[in-house]
């Protein structure tokens, strides 16, 4: 059985191969996938999502050029030891405060769109400062 299962959001406007790339990146960052772990085979992804095999190859190619994964001939694609290390324990606090923040936003009656607008506004101003 594959270690992770991809899913697609056909309404997001994000190209399919990029969605796969992002999901692997997230899984690595969250420690769900660790160095040496095998990504789902092309055949597994093709079967579960009914997508073109070339799309999977393109995603895995992008992960290789980012240094996150490597293809081993005849075996499959694996998470590299040089992949970014998962977020440390210190993010636990950030995660909790973010969860609180979302709770407060909902309690204040903000909907998804309002939350997204606030987030992108703050993301923008944080970038300017940095």
């Amino acid at each position, binding site marked *: 059985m594959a270690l992770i299962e991809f899913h*697609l959001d*056909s309404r997001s406007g994000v190209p*399919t191969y990029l969605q796969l790339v992002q999901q692997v990146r997230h899984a690595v960052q969250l420690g769900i996938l660790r160095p040496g772990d095998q990504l789902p085979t092309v*055949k597994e992804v*093709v079967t579960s999502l009914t*997508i*073109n*095999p*070339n*799309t999977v190859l393109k995603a895995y190619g992008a992960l290789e050029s980012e240094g996150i994964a490597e293809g081993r001939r005849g075996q499959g694609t694996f998470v590299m030891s040089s992949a970014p290390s998962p977020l440390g324990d210190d993010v636990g606090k950030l995660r909790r405060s973010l969860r609180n923040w979302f709770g407060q936003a909902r309690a204040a009656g903000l909907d998804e769109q309002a939350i997204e607008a606030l987030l992108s506004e703050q993301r923008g101003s944080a970038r300017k400062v940095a």
Partner: protein
Amino acid sequence: MTSALETRGLGRRYGSQWALQNCTLEIPRGTVTALVGPNGAGKTTLLRLAVGLIRPSAGSVRVFGLDPREQAGEALPRVGFLAQEHPLYSGFTVEEMLRVGRKLNPGWDDAGARGRIAALDLPLEKKVRSLSGGQRAQVALTLALAKRPELLLLDEPVASLDPLARREFLQSVVEAVAEHELSVILSSHILADLERVCDHLVILAAGRTQLAASIDEIIASHRLLTGPRGEAEDVSRMHEVVRESHAERQTTLLVRANGHIYDSHWTVHELDLEEIVLAYLGQDAVRRREAVAS
């Protein structure tokens, strides 16, 4: 390497009516291509020309560089064709259909075919006429794949299927592509199911090729421009305008861009594939192209 399918100025006339006209395109190997267009656009004609079922009235068609009629002996074993009605002998059982397939095709992959039938839970002893539409389509696809073609042509393969059967059928197609060196061309008058499955797209309308390219390239090059109402001449000098419309104060252009669009008059929006295809199928776009061609 030669293309899976290549046509040059290909046309087919029935009486005085052109079913397909001046069709030039090239489909690389290893791709899954959607052949999209309204009914009567010439999709079936193009596929039938590719397998040599009919003779061109003009131009040429090659599969793997071979003429499907003059070099049929070499070309046709490499091509699988599944016609729209999933033709099978309705009085035969699935088992009998498999035996017929093996008798008729030299390179028959019997183990592969039986494996697929078992994996799909299709009863060997059942007569074709008592199968569901989805099962019949799967049997027909199994027969087409067991021939081990390098190019598989599917004419409206999912049009008659319910959403689940449609998904299962397409799943079988992409699995076959993942397992073997297989190029696929599938025609459809709707795009919705095909978008994920295909990496190339050919749009046919009014018997002509409107667009033929990789889907990535299509998405990357098409943009919607909105700006104050006025002349679109500056844009059309640089880029190909597919569709234009004018409101009282605003002009909207759908363009196939040649590089970046720098003109600050226009606000540039991205488009999804369906919007692009619909723009090409619109009468305005088709007429525009006919004017260019004549």
